[in-house]
């Protein structure tokens, strides 16, 4: 069964071009089969990740290298986007709050928005675009040029070396990037507040920290681990099983990685909100 599922995935991109439809144009049941085979395939991939992750040898050097490439190399992009995000959100929110005479609440409102929702989701989407596509394209390229096969014959478990390290790095680097991005976003907000007003740095941040609660910060950071895991895993899945025989396989793998990872970010976010609501009730 597992073999069939993996065979299915290896050939899936060939079949994408010829989605089976019956004469009336209604998508036939084989599309559902394909969907469930795909779900089963990614489930097996995920289970394999956990199995390989706990099994030695542990690729510490590669893990460190990937953490540097995935985390450190994304800092500038996250910093710029987060700063703009904080700044724009503040500028856009000011008139509405001013209407209700609640302009003084601007730092708190922006902080809660950024920390609870906008920061994690936007940074995760940027991360999916940069890191998810990068991983997908890199592994697909390695697959096409037989580098993964070469690793296998060199006494190296390619899954452990390539997939486990990248997924773990993505899982732990995204929360750090989100914390960094949130901080920069708040700095952007501080700059925006001071464009029209005059609020001191200490007043701005003390107002924010006084209003923030543990349940504003903790769940928001916790969900970013899941975002990072999903982005890393989907990128690796699309690259690792990229079909060698198809045209533009690297581009397709990168594209699929971004699309599905971005989608998963929203799905996980929705689930996180539901779970959080349950706890709060």
């Amino acid at each position, binding site marked *: 069964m597992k073999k069939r599922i993996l065979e299915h995935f290896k050939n899936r991109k060939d079949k994408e071009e010829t989605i089976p439809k019956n004469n009336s144009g209604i998508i036939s049941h084989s599309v559902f089969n394909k969907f469930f085979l795909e779900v089963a395939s990614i489930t097996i991939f995920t289970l394999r990740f956990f199995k390989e992750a706990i099994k030695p040898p542990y690729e510490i050097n590669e893990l460190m290298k990937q953490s540097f490439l995935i985390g450190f190399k994304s800092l500038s992009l996250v910093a710029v986007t987060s700063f703009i995000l904080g700044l724009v959100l503040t500028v856009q929110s000011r008139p509405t709050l001013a209407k209700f005479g609640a302009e003084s609440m601007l730092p708190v409102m922006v902080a809660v928005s950024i920390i609870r929702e906008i920061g994690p989701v936007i940074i995760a989407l940027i991360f999916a675009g940069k890191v998810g596509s990068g991983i997908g394209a890199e592994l697909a390229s390695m697959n096409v040029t*037989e*580098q993964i*096969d*070469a690793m*296998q*014959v*060199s*006494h190296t478990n390619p899954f452990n070396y390539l997939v486990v390290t990248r997924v773990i790095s993505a899982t732990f680097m995204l929360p750090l990037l989100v914390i960094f991005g949130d901080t920069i976003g708040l700095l952007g907000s501080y700059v925006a507040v001071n464009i029209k007003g005059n609020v001191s740095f200490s007043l701005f941040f003390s107002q924010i920290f006084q209003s923030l609660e543990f349940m504003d910060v903790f769940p928001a950071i916790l969900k970013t681990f899941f975002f990072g895991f999903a982005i890393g895993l989907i990128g690796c899945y699309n690259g690792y099983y990229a079909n060698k025989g198809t045209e533009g396989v690297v581009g397709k793998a990168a594209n699929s990685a971004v699309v599905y990872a971005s989608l998963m970010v929203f799905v996980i976010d929705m689930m996180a909100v539901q779970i959080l609501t349950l706890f709060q009730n």
Partner: protein
Amino acid sequence: MTNIKTSIKTEKSSNPNGEIVVEMEHLKKSFENNNVLLDINLVLNKKENLVILGKSGTGKSVLIKCIVGLVEHDEGKLKLFGQSISELKEKELTNLRRKIGFLFQSGALYDSMTVRENLEFPLKRQLISISKKEINTLVEEALENVGLSDTIELSPSELSGGMRKRLGLARTLILKPEIMLYDEPTTGLDPITSKEISKLIIEVQEKYNTSSIIITHDIECAKLTANRMIVIKDGICAAEGLYKDLESSSDKWVKSFFE
């Protein structure tokens, strides 16, 4: 003597040692509904260069990937050094792979690493207790063997096609394998570089006493390197013999390779 039958059984006696390192019997492999290998019978004797000829898409690469365990065969027997690989556990297969070198069609160099790191990679993975000094010596020696000493700090993207092939060969040979598997070693190269690679294959056989399977449809490479040849057609071994026997074969299809 050229044999042309439905599926021939290859001879074991082309070298005096007669020691078999690879043996296949009725090997079959298919991908979904595509039957790639229907009935492959072959043996590779020790210190022998066996060339496998065949048109593109006849499953030649799949055949050698079965040998190294990258592709799992469906039916038939496949023995390496007398051990049936389908009965081996993952760890045993990994250990057995240490004795096998595989030169991939594309060279399969790691793009994210330099030439030095490409050569260090298999050493660090397989010889865990090796010192940095020993690694350096082996790397420099391997590069010297293939005439690429001055490329040590370059990245693979800075190398030409022939250099990439030679570097792939150096990376494979650094662990001194007993069996070498060459997947179309001269494809995409100009005639002069092809000849250089073919000569290198012979040098490897003489220097390291390797047994080799060379997959190719380059007849010049086959002529230079082959001790014995097998022709694959429609998933079966259609003919076997020495180069000169196959060249003068009465079978039109076999002869067409040599024209």
